[in-house]
């Protein structure tokens, strides 16, 4: 965690493998070099893992002129960012992590590319660790629209579903490029008007998805009648290589805020089998927890919204968030390291109203970042 903020060398040094993605993303956007040392150096199996190597390769594919040096044991990484090129990219994501892991970085970088990105990512679409593609599609995409990224160019499509450990899923992501990002004022989340969801099952009985839906509805119906949970049972080639099922829930408010929760079954051969009823109930409770945290942005997208706010036009942006996640707190520190921007952080207490926990109002002035590599037309 040692941040050597030396302006002359423009090289930031960090330790450990955690937050690798945000470091490389911010490095690419700011043009500052990054050195990461002591990656799992005390581990029995030291150095970068396969999924991290796969992520670094993806970064290499979407950029031009990036220099990457890794030492022999893989415990040290030097990254000199190149130009964000974009264009058509195909990538086989390592199935140790789901596509969400790779996609989150692409979402952050996509608007700042030279050419609009059209990425085909193959691997695991839903797992227990990372935000699934379903959830990102339901929450991150509408969020990006608020920053002026809209039109037909913005699309996230699940072509094939793949569960761990085998994977075999496929996702298509396209995003337009922008010269600059609009500032936002996300201060009023509004009220939840509907709940939507996606219960998916692959290579198991299609009845399982229905059982998930019934159990999740039994909890959520106490609050609101407008609930619709789609069931998605993919067959044949589009069902990937491993069996599994899960649920992704999204609550939509009157002001266009999307709060999500999700759960997936244990991967084949790992852990005890999960009952679909149990999974549906737990997921519904997780959604209530997320609603309790609240804010205008879902907890998994906190860092995405803060990044867009940082890189927006030189104007004030505001966003009301729920409690900051540890990942977001580290992201704020990294934003300070790379862009010298600090947020104003105010807690807001809801009085007398029954609206869950404390909220945090984040305010910043954008860096006025403009995408100079976007071609003029």
């Amino acid at each position, binding site marked *: 965690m040692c941040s050597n903020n030396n302006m002359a060398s423009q090289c930031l040094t960090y330790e450990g493998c955690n937050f690798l993605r945000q470091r490389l993303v911010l490095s690419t956007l700011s043009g500052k070099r990054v050195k990461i040392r002591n990656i799992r150096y005390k581990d029995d199996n030291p150095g970068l893992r396969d999924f991290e190597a796969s992520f670094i390769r993806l970064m290499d594919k979407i950029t031009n002129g990036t220099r990457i040096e890794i030492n022999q044991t893989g415990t040290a990484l030097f990254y000199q960012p190149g130009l964000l090129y974009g264009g058509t990219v195909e990538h086989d994501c390592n199935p140790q992590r789901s596509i969400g892991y790779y996609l989150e970085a692409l979402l952050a970088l996509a608007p700042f590319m030279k050419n609009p990105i059209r990425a085909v990512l193959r691997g695991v679409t839903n797992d227990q660790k990372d935000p699934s593609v379903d959830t990102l599609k339901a929450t991150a995409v509408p969020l990006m629209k608020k920053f002026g990224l809209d039109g037909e160019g913005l699309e996230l499509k699940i072509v094939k579903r793949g569960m761990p450990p085998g994977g075999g899923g496929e996702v298509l992501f396209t995003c337009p490029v922008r010269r600059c990002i609009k500032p936002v004022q996300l201060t009023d989340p509004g009220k939840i008007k509907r709940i939507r969801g996606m219960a998916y099952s692959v290579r198991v009985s299609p009845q399982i998805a229905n059982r998930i839906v019934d159990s999740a509805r039994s909890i959520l119906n106490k*609050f609101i009648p407008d609930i619709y949970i789609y069931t998605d049972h993919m067959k044949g080639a589009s069902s990937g290589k491993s069996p599994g099922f899960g649920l992704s829930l999204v609550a939509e408010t009157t002001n266009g805020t999307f709060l999500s929760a999700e759960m997936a079954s244990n991967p084949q051969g790992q852990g005890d089998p999960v009952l679909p009823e149990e999974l549906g109930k737990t997921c519904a409770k997780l959604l209530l927890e997320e609603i309790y945290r609240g804010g205008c942005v879902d907890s998994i997208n906190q860092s995405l919204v803060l990044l867009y706010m940082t890189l927006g036009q030189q104007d004030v942006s505001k966003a009301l968030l729920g409690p900051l996640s540890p990942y977001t707190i580290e992201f704020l520190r990294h934003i300070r390291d790379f862009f010298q921007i600090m947020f104003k952080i105010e807690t807001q207490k809801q009085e007398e109203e029954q609206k869950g926990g404390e909220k945090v109002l984040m305010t910043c002035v954008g860096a006025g970042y403009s995408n100079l590599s976007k071609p003029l037309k």
Partner: protein
Amino acid sequence: AAEAFLRQQRTTPNLRKLVYGTVAAKEIKDEEEEEEELGGLFRVSRPETSKKRQADGLDCSRYPPDGIHNWDQEEMLESIRDCFVTGKWEAEKDAS
């Protein structure tokens, strides 16, 4: 209102310090953590220190609730009632 303002003044710097200030504090703690030496040749490495867990932790944006509230209780359900359109509305707004 003045009281609320003062309370906010008190809590705000704390959160800011929490986000931007702890880095220095953590570094100091790391230096204190000295490695024991055995016979001047081997060093005892303690793999599970809190610092290491953070630096080499799982790189994931999901925010798992540390202690999920008990959502079977009626009071908990009440506490988020007004987040929904079916809840109470502020005076100036209307369900149009």
